[in-house]
C-alpha cells in the first residue's frame, strides 16, 4: 500500500513536469518563433499604425458609418475577458423580448434596408466575440453605412463582396465577412465616418 502511494507520488511528479511544465513551455517557445503574430492575438493596426483590436475578436460599433457585429452576451457586450453566450433557451421570454427590441432598433436605424432583418443580427453568438457576420447581414447594412458616409451604396456593396471569405475547401463552415477589418477597409477607402452616434 505504502509502496503504491509512493510510486503514485513519483509518477504524478514526473507526468506533471513533462505535460504541465515542459510541454506548454516548449509549444510556447516554438510558436513564438514560427507564428508570433497569431500566437500573440492576431492584432490589427489602422493606417497610423495604432493597434485597434484583434482580427479574431469582435468589438462594438455604434456609429452609423460602421458595420455592426452581432449582439454580444460577453460581459456588458464584447468584453474579451468575459466570453460567453446568453444561454437563453428556445422558449425564453427574455430571448424573445431582446430579439423584438433589437429588430425594432435595426429597422429604425436602417429604414432603406431591403428585406427583413437577418436573424443573426438579433441573436447573440456563442462566444459573444464572434468577429464575423454573414454576407447577407453585412449587405443588409449597406444602405445605412453608405448614407452616413455620403458615398454610393454600390461602391460599399462592392467592397463588402470583395471581402467575403468563402467556405474552406468549399464545404467547411459558412461564408462570412470580418466586421473589424471591413470597417478598417471602409476608412481606408472612404475616410473616417462623421462621428454621429446612431443609438
Amino acid at each position, binding site marked *: 500500500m505504502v509502496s503504491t502511494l509512493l510510486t503514485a507520488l513519483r*509518477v504524478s511528479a514526473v507526468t506533471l513536469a513533462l505535460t504541465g511544465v515542459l510541454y506548454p513551455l516548449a509549444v510556447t517557445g516554438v510558436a513564438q518563433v514560427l507564428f508570433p503574430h497569431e500566437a500573440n492575438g492576431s492584432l490589427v493596426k489602422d493606417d497610423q499604425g495604432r493597434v485597434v*483590436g484583434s482580427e479574431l475578436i469582435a468589438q462594438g460599433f455604434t456609429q452609423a458609418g*460602421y458595420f455592426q457585429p452581432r449582439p454580444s452576451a460577453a460581459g456588458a457586450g464584447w468584453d474579451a475577458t468575459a466570453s460567453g453566450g446568453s*444561454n437563453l433557451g428556445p422558449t425564453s421570454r427574455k430571448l424573445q423580448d431582446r430579439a423584438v427590441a433589437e429588430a425594432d432598433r435595426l429597422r429604425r436605424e436602417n429604414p432603406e434596408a431591403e428585406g427583413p432583418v437577418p436573424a443573426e443580427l438579433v441573436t447573440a*453568438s*456563442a462566444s459573444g466575440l464572434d468577429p464575423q457576420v454573414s454576407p447577407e447581414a453585412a449587405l443588409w447594412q449597406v444602405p445605412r453605412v453608405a448614407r452616413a458616409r455620403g458615398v454610393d451604396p454600390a461602391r460599399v456593396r462592392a467592397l463588402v463582396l470583395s471581402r467575403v471569405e468563402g467556405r474552406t475547401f468549399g464545404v467547411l463552415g459558412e461564408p462570412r465577412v470580418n466586421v473589424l477589418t471591413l470597417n478598417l477597409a471602409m476608412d481606408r477607402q472612404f475616410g473616417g465616418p462623421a462621428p454621429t452616434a446612431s443609438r
Partner: protein
Amino acid sequence: MTLVGWSQLLLFFALVLVLTKPVGTYLFRVFESGTPPLPRVLGPVERVLLRLCGVNREQEQTWGQYTASLLAFSLFSVLGVYALQRLQHVLPFNPQGLPAVGPELAFNTAASFTSNTNWQSYGGESTMSYATQMWGLTWQNFASAAAGLGVALALARGLTRRAGPEGRETLGSFWVDLVRGTLYVFLPLSFVVALFFVSQGVLQNLAPYHGVSTLEGAKQTLAFGPVASQEAIKMLGTNGGGFFNANSAHPFENPTPLTNLVQLLLIFVLPAGLTYTYGKMTGDTKQGWALFAAMSILFLVGAAASYAAEAQPNPALASASVAQAGNLEGKETRFGVAASALFATVTTDASCGAVNSMHDSFTALGGLVPLVNMQLGEVIFGGVGAGLYGILVMAVLAVFIAGLMVGRTPEFLGKKIEAREMKLAMLYVLIFPLVILGLSAVGAVTPQGTSSLNNAGPHGLSEILYAFTSGVANNGSAFAGLNANTPFWNIGLGLAMLAGRFLMMVPVLALAGSLVGKKAVAPGPGTFPTEGALFTGLLVSVVVIVGALTFFPVLSLGPIVEHFLGAAGKVY
C-alpha cells in the same frame, strides 16, 4: 438543411473511417506489441521516465493492484489540482494577479479534471492563472486521458488473454500504460496539433492581458494565455475543458472552420482507433469493426437529428419578424448551423464536452440529442478508453441476453459469462442512472438547486438534468445558463463526477480480473458470434433500450414537453 451541411457530416465521418485502422494499429504497437514505435528515439526516454517513476517495466499487475494504482494516482491528481488553485495567488505565471480559487470551486475543478470530465463552474479567463491552467489543468488533460486508456486496455486484456498452464491473472501495468500513453500517443500528437492551431490564430503566450483602444475609441481588454497547448490535448484526450469560458466557440480557441474540423477529428480519432486495437487484440479485427459499426449507427442518427432540429427557425422569434436561417442564438457565424449541430453531437457522443455553440440555446429537440447521447452511457465512440470499456460492458450484456434467448450459458470470446460477471456488469449499468436521477431529483426540489437556473419552465428541468448527466457521464458540456458556482452545485457535481468515473471503473477492472483467469472454450454450435451485423444490431438495441427505458420519463418532462409548448408559441 443544405447539401453543403450534410456533406460536412459525411466528410467528417469518412475521415474518421479512414483514420480508424492506422490509429488502431499504432495504438496496438504501443501497448501490445512489446516493441513500441521509434525504439531508438523514444525507447531511451521511456526507460528514463520509468526509472524516475520507480516502475519496473516487466512487472504486471492483478486487477486489484491495477485498481489500487489508478486510485492512488487519481488521489494525488485531485490533491495536486486542488492545491494549485488554492495557492495560485502566491505562485508565478499569474500576470493578472488572480486571487486564490475558493474551496468548493477548487474541489469541483479538481474532481472535474481528474475524472476526465472538465465540467467548469468558472470562466477560465476570469478565474484561473496561467500556472493553474498549465500545471494543473493541462497536466490532468493528459493524465486522466492516459488513465482512461489504461482501464480500457485492462478490460480488453481480461477478455482476450488466454490463461496459460499456470493460469495468468495479470492485466498489464497501470504505470507502464500511463507513461506509454503519454509519451507515445498524447504528447507527440498534441505538440504537432498545438502548433497547427497557433498557425490558424489560436493564442500561445504567457503575456498579461492586452488592452487596446478600439476603432471607435472604446477600451477593450484581450484575454491572453497559453491556449493552443491546452486546446490540443483538450480535444485529443476527450477532456473538453476550455481555456476560456466560451470554450471552442471562442475565436482564440477555435478560429476557423478548418480548426473546427480538426478539433472534431481529434475527439473521435482515439476512441474510434481503439475499436480496431481491440479487434487486433482478439485476433479478429471483425470483432472491433462490429463495435465500430454499432457506434457509427448511433452517431449518424444523432448527428442527423441534431442538424434537422437546429436548421428549424425558433417559433419564439416569429414576433420579431426576422429572416431565420435556422436557430442562430448561441452559434458562431463561421461555423453556422451544420458545423455547430455536428460538434454538439460529436462532443456528447464522446464524453468530450467541448462546445463550439451554446447547447442551452439549442431548440428543444436539438438539445435533446446531446442529452440522450450522454445518457446512453458515453459509448458512442465515448471518451478515450471510457468509450471502449463502456461498449464492452454493453457487449457483455448483449451476449448475456442472446444466451438467455437460446438457453445456453453465454460466452464472450470463448470466456463464460457467469453470475459474477453479470453482477459486475449490472453494477456498472445501474450506478449511472441512479446517481444522475437521484441527484437531479434533489436539484429539482431544493431551493439550492433551482435558484441557479437561468431559464424557467421545462427548460429549467432540462438544465438540472443536463448538469448531472454531464457530470456522471464525465462529459463536461453544459446547459451553461445554470449558475453552477454555488456550494450545492460545486459539491454535488464534484461528487457526481467522481462517482461517474471511479464507481464505474472499479467494476470494470473487477470484471477484467474475473475474466482474465478464465479458460477460453472453443466456439461451438450454440455460440453467439460477436462479430457481424446481427451482433451489431443486438448491441445497438441493448444500448438504446437500457438508456431509453431509464431516462424517457424525465426527458418527456423536460425537452419533449418544451418542444410541443414552444411549437405552440409559449414562452417562459
